[in-house]
């Protein structure tokens, strides 16, 4: 099996980097990330921002969805704010 292929024969896109911007003033940009089994906010922050301590940024952006930052579940769709 090629390194990039998962066992369902589709490529792996976990290292994709993305961004966005707008000419509209004060536009807010965020990525939508679907929680997978084994994820934690710090792991997601490490992957997205390169800094596990930035998990608070993700938590604050999802306060309406997350009551406890230690409790996230597979399938949840989190807003990941753009890096500063």
């Amino acid at each position: 099996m090629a390194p990039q292929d998962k066992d369902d024969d589709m490529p792996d896109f976990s290292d994709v980097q993305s961004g966005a911007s707008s000419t509209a003033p004060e536009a807010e940009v965020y990525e939508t990330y679907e929680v997978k089994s084994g994820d934690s906010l710090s792991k997601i922050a490490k992957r997205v921002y390169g800094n596990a301590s930035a998990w608070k940024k993700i938590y604050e952006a999802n306060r309406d969805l997350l009551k406890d930052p230690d409790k996230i579940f597979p399938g949840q769709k989190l807003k990941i704010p753009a890096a500063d």
Partner: protein
Amino acid sequence: MKKLTASLLPLLMLGAQGCKKEPPPPTPPPVTIATLPPTTQPAVVSVSTVTLGNAIDAEKRVTSAVDTFTPKETIYASVDTIGTGPAKVRALWSFVRGEKVAKVDETTIELNPTGPATNEFHVSKPSGWPKGDYKVEIFLNDAAVPAQTKTFKVG
């Protein structure tokens, strides 16, 4: 001469009456001319155009539209919107192989434009894009159906 003057007098008086100034016509009421407001934007944001390319300019517009990319390129989608008011524009990038679809990335811009706006979304993959077919779907707000879809290839 006296007789002539006397006979002319009534005529002169008539002429004077004929020249009597008519009272000025009443001042007409002021006419209000409806003026069209400056070109107004619709109060709802909509997507007008989506263009793909491998570079954008300072206005966030793709410099040269393409639909085939190399594995190491950053892929841009420039999305023009019209209208005003709060809106969400979401780009969902996917890899397509036959009936299977794999999500590549999903990014949202929340904006509140006061006029036409240009929005850019971009994706890159340091290890290189797998060759094949892809698509980017542009959704407005919480719509389940994309406002526009663009397909492209990496090869």
